[in-house]
């Protein structure tokens, strides 16, 4: 593992983003999540008159609908942001014509992608402070039953998304397109991943599909550590699942990436 490569990548991306697109990405993160929370807030008050249905309470283990949505929408936007940076790193090089140079450079792909995730993480933290202000402005209080569990859940989410991004990035350069693959992944994660509604709403086969998605267990931990009222001991099994799933995705991604790179180069030249 080469730390200078990761550091140089993160620094380059930081400089580039700061100079060329200072606001695009920040607003692109805060706005969708803020609107999703606003939608829930308005629906909760105007339609539900401050109450929720019993099947939500049964599935989510809480009546705190708004806190549940706030955690879910934030986690979802965080996932989207990380995928947009890490998985799209390689196809951006391809589009700008620098993928060939990257492939012959004596720098490992793994630290390169880690550098992007590191950058995405740092910039997202700033964006999520802004989102925190939005959540506070709506007067939504988020209970935390296990601060350590919440921290580990966030770490698990980052790890699983990174593991997913390695293979997805390979898929993008091999196919030469990002728009359709990324949006399909986002929509599938949003529907099956248990972000903004309990998975008990889904039909049983869809719940099984959800277990195969990398982020599902991590989102369970995040909900469990907040509105779920679970202690760290309750959360450990799902955290274990996260580690296993992330390891599986990472292994597949690292095995597939060299093939994808070869395919991309053959297609281009």
């Amino acid at each position, binding site marked *: 593992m080469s730390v200078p490569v990761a550091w140089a990548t993160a620094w380059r991306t930081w400089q580039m983003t700061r100079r060329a697109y200072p606001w*695009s990405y920040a607003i692109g993160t805060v706005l969708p999540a803020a609107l999703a929370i606003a939608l829930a807030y308005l629906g909760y008050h105007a339609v539900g008159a401050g109450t929720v*249905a019993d099947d939500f309470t049964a599935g989510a283990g809480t009546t705190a609908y708004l806190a549940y949505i706030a955690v879910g929408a934030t986690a979802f936007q965080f996932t989207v942001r990380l995928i947009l940076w890490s998985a799209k790193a390689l196809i951006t090089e391809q589009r700008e014509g620098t993928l060939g140079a990257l492939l012959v450079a004596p720098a490992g792909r793994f630290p390169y992608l880690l550098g992007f995730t590191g950058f995405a993480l740092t910039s997202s933290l700033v964006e999520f402070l802004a989102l925190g202000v939005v959540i506070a402005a709506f007067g939504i209080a988020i209970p935390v039953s296990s601060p350590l569990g919440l921290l580990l859940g966030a770490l698990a989410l980052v790890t699983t998304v990174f593991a997913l991004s390695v293979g997805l990035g390979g898929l993008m350069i091999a196919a030469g397109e990002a728009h*359709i693959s990324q949006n399909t992944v986002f929509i599938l994660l949003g529907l099956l991943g248990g972000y903004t509604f309990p998975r008990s709403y889904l039909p049983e086969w869809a719940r099984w599909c959800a277990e195969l998605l990398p982020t599902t267990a991590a989102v369970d931990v995040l909900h469990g550590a907040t509105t779920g009222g679970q202690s760290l001991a309750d959360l450990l099994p799902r955290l274990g699942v996260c580690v296993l799933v992330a390891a599986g995705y990472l292994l597949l991604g690292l095995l597939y990436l060299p093939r994808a790179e070869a395919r991309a180069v053959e297609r281009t030249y």
Partner: protein
Amino acid sequence: MSLGLRHALRIFAAEALKQHRRLFGQPLVVFSMLVWPVLQLATTYYTLRPVATASPAAANWPLAADPERLLAFLATGTLAYAFFFSLVQSAWHFAFERTTGTLELLFLSPAGRLTLMIANGAGALMQNAWLLTCFTVAALTGFGVLSVSAWWMYGVVLLALLVPAVAWGAFLNSLLVFSRDSTFLYTILDEPLWFVAGVRLPNFALPAAVQVVGAVFPLTGSLVALRGALLEHRTLTELALPLTGLAALSALLLGAAALILRAGEARAQRTGGLAMA
């Protein structure tokens, strides 16, 4: 047929064909046409279900008491949003003409600028929305939630979606073609659009300020006409006001598009730069 009109129609056909060939090559395009909106609809439905099926909900919003009618409400929102979003998407794609260096060629050619912008938008609309339209109509009919006053109201609905959407597309294309950071505008125009237009919530749930902002977007009016005609059994006279508003808004957007194109091109000739924002 006058020579000018024939010329415009040929440009229209050529641009729409270009758009079709560029985007329709892969079978994956079905995803953006049909699979995304349907999955998005499911996510929205499930996310709103806890409040829509809460015990006091039926009193506040009678429609919410019936899951099928709630789904129909959200489905009409998804359909109208897909129309307008496919134009945001096409405008975003049009901005690639800058990156690939073909924008200069467009401005060198004798093709009418506004015709190009309208054709690009309309072409994208045709190929993105037809499948979802068929699907939505079939699904709504199957659920038995449609309540239409006359058969020709379907035509009115289609026009109320198509005309404002094309005007919106022409406006966006003109705006984005002169923008350096088109992704930014894409973000700004994608998410807030569904929020202010009442795609996923009834209008009464939106604060007054949001409703005022929403009135500026043609999607809001299109949705009123669409839901009124398909779900609420409104007649043409009952919908006259929103339809007139839509027509005025469409004319305004087309005028603004022509103005932006003229100003942008004049600026490009003077300064050599193609960016206004």
